């Protein structure tokens, strides 16, 4: 049981936040000076970052599209950040107009922004919760309602698990979430790998160590094991552009340069 938050955590706009830095990578202006400073430094060191973020965004779109086409109407997007464009509910509703989405983030600004955007959308909800406390997360009424109907739920952990440290036990978190999912549910993961750009991994992680959300890039083997209990859909765990591209040309010659390993699994 999580202790009640007697005193809320303070908001510090002088420190970069992952959600707003990500927005900057994508060319957005939902960010503050500290976020931009951090993002510019990161891009200077690793000019591919904006491309990687676009590829990540494209994967999210393709994965949600795939899942909606499979008939999923319930989505749980953890680490949703600032939904700039191509938000999950927009993509899903192209195929499933009744789709319900619960967005979860622990960044109060991202949560506030999402709530302002989704104020009038009764089929969507925004929850201020932390992935590293899955019991608390699952106990939130909006999440419990989404999972409680017994219908399959698509759990999206896109570019969020690499912000969970080993001490916080990502496998344990995944097991807790998996046990809460109804049969037939799905899991989509995008996770920064060590193998894609081994030359960049250390400096990039060092940069994020100064943020409230340090980053832990992991091996392909470890990322594969995150799907324990799920059956991976084709093509399994691959680099971002390789996952079900709409056009073969979009994969490019060096998909590993996009660093992120992705996959979608189905719960039997």
């Amino acid at each position: 049981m999580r202790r009640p938050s007697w005193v809320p955590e303070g908001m510090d706009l002088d420190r970069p936040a992952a959600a707003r830095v990500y927005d900057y990578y994508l060319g957005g202006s939902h960010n503050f000076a500290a976020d931009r400073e951090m993002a510019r430094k990161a891009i200077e060191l690793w000019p591919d970052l904006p491309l990687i973020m676009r590829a990540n965004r494209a994967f999210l779109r393709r994965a949600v599209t795939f899942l909606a086409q499979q008939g999923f109407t319930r989505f749980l997007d953890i680490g949703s950040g600032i939904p700039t464009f191509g938000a999950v509910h927009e993509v899903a509703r192209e195929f499933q107009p009744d789709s319900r989405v619960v967005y979860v983030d622990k960044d109060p600004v991202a949560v506030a922004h999402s709530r302002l955007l989704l104020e009038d959308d009764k089929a969507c909800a925004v929850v201020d919760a932390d992935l590293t406390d899955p019991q608390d997360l699952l106990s939130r009424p909006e999440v419990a309602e989404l999972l409680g109907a017994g219908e399959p739920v698509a759990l999206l952990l896109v570019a969020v698990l690499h912000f969970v440290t080993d001490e916080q036990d990502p496998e344990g978190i995944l097991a807790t979430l998996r046990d809460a999912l109804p049969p037939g549910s799905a899991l989509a993961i995008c996770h920064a790998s060590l193998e894609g750009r081994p030359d960049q991994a250390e400096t990039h992680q060092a940069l994020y160590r100064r943020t409230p959300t340090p980053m832990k890039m992991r091996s392909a083997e470890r990322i594969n094991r995150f799907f324990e209990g799920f059956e991976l859909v084709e093509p399994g765990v691959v680099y971002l552009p390789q996952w079900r591209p709409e056009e073969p040309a979009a994969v490019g010659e060096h998909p590993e340069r996009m660093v992120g390993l992705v996959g979608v699994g189905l719960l039997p």
Partner: protein
Amino acid sequence: MTSPLPAEQQGSTDSAGRSIPDPDRWSSLLRGSQGAAMHPDALHRLVSRTTELLQLAQAEEDALDTGAAAEAGALLVESHFTDPDLLAGAIGLLQAGGPGQLRCAELAGAFAAGWAEALRERTLQEQEAIRLAADTARREAERALRESEARFRALFESAAIGIGIGDVEGNILAVNKALQDIFGARPGDMQGRRVNDLVHPEDSPGVWEAYEEMVSGKRDHFSLDKPYYRQDGEVVWTHLTCSLIRDDDGTPVYQVAMLEDITDRYRLQERLRHQATHDPLTGLPNRSAFFERLEAVFDSPEPGARFGLCYVDLDGFKVVNDSLGHEMGDQLLAAVALRLESALRPLGHLVARLGGDEFVVLLEDCRGEQEAVAAAKTVLAALAKPVPIDGHRLAIGASIGVLERPVAATTPMAAVRAADLTLYRAKEEGRGRWTLFDPQRNARSVSRYAVSVRMPVALDRGEFFIDYQPLCRLSDGSLSAVEALVRWRHPQLGVLGPDEFIGTAEETGLIMPLGRWVLEQACGQAADWVRQFGDRAPQINVNLAVRQVRNAGLVTDIDRILRSCGLDPSRLQLEITESAVVGPKDESLRALHSLVDMGVSLAVDDFGTGWSNLAYLRDLPVSSLKIAGSFVSDLKETGREQQLGWRIVGGLVSLSHSLGLTVTAEGVENADHATRLRQMGCDRAQGWHFGRPARPEEIVRRIMEEHDLKPDK
């Protein structure tokens, strides 16, 4: 990919005659930018629409439609094409006609203006949105903080436990309602007071040290029971927990005290403790409380510290109890306790009741012997006047053993024992007096003490043994009998004679098993000698204590012993003292007759030292009389005394003979006495002249010598 441009579209062309922008390069530019995140169909639609708008802008020969070009730019921004590199690439494609082509520059300019305008608008909107989000989040955080504060304030104000907050200088900053109630204070009473003002004389040692350690940051909390004065001066007992609050750098800033009113619990504990440590009859501290205090005196004493004890025993209390009843006795004890308490407490001494009619006065930090003696005199003075109870005026005195010693010289137990033994000397020396502890006399008493403590286990451990002293016929000096004399090889005190422990054995009841053991040993030994020497073996004399004579099982015991060792009863003579039989109707008389019937003979031992009621010699079935050793050993003196002494001895001999008893003289230490006694007709003699008590082997040697027997028989 085919060009998205519809065939009928009009527009400018570059120098190569291609339309501006080049559809393939335009499409490729967008795909390389934000288009990578878009669905191909959506990207395709965007490429078509923007190309269409740019073509439309160039549709009129004379006038460029800048609005359409700007719309194309805005459309791209709307689809998140906000990358400056994209603008550069787009302008490059729009100016493909060459620098000379003014229309192309104008087209590019209009597109760029539309893009920039849209981007500025979008940027401002997004900044506004994120600001709004941040403000909302902050307000939410502030609201949560206020709620949290309200929650804390409610918790603080309505907590059942008393809570106080102070700074590390000890200024009390805030207290809650419960704490005000505990202190009986009104709001504001506690404000401005200091933690250090809240001392109480009963504060447990270490409470303020713990406090100083905490506020200086050496410890983070402490917890203990502490009394406080309420506003009205009453004392309230609390369970106090103090904690330190530090800032982010770890510097102590505040202290929080939580107090629970445990006064009721404390009083109950106190009452239970009082009950456990006080004598219910007199209200004085009881034995365990006294020992607790005494042990505290010995617990880390100052160098050279002295203490005093007056061990008080009431004289004649038993008489009051027996004659006037226990209720009266209890009232008397209570009255005595009150007198002692009111006389000695003002002097700073502790009075405790040890039990029965025994009291003790403890002088902590005694200044010397005089002070202890003064305390004893105070006790005697306090009891000098009779105690009026129920119309009686009861005179009660006391005997007191006074002990005054350096703490380092003794232990609590030894001190009390010594005071007790000193008390007994006071009793022996006549009651109603105090006696001062005397180390030498104490040593002797202690050995007596050691005897009684040790004796119960001594028999089991085989510490007793028997020596035999010859009784010789005065006619020829031959061995007639031996007297069995029990000895105790005490592990600390060495070998003890019967007079050193038989008294104690009688008091403790140990005389019964000990006496039986002596009989078994002596009879067994005698039977051995009979087997060895036949008629030449000596008769065996064994002493019977008064308690043994009065014991109902005596006859059975002796019968069993004689049978089991196979000794002829006629070879056993039992020596009894005059006090063993009180009178002709005494129960024990029957037992003695039974023994005689059995064939055992009886002798009166130590005749002349007791009542010497000649009348009962007639009733007792005795066959022999032993004249106490003092009669003969006192004959050393010369003159008239000596003549008188001999005359008494002679009288006793002839008296005995006239009663048909044989006579043995004890304490015969020289040949002259032996000769004189023989001349008087005394039958047997015992004493150093005829042989000291000896080991059985010595007796054997003597028998053999007397009868000229070879040792290896």
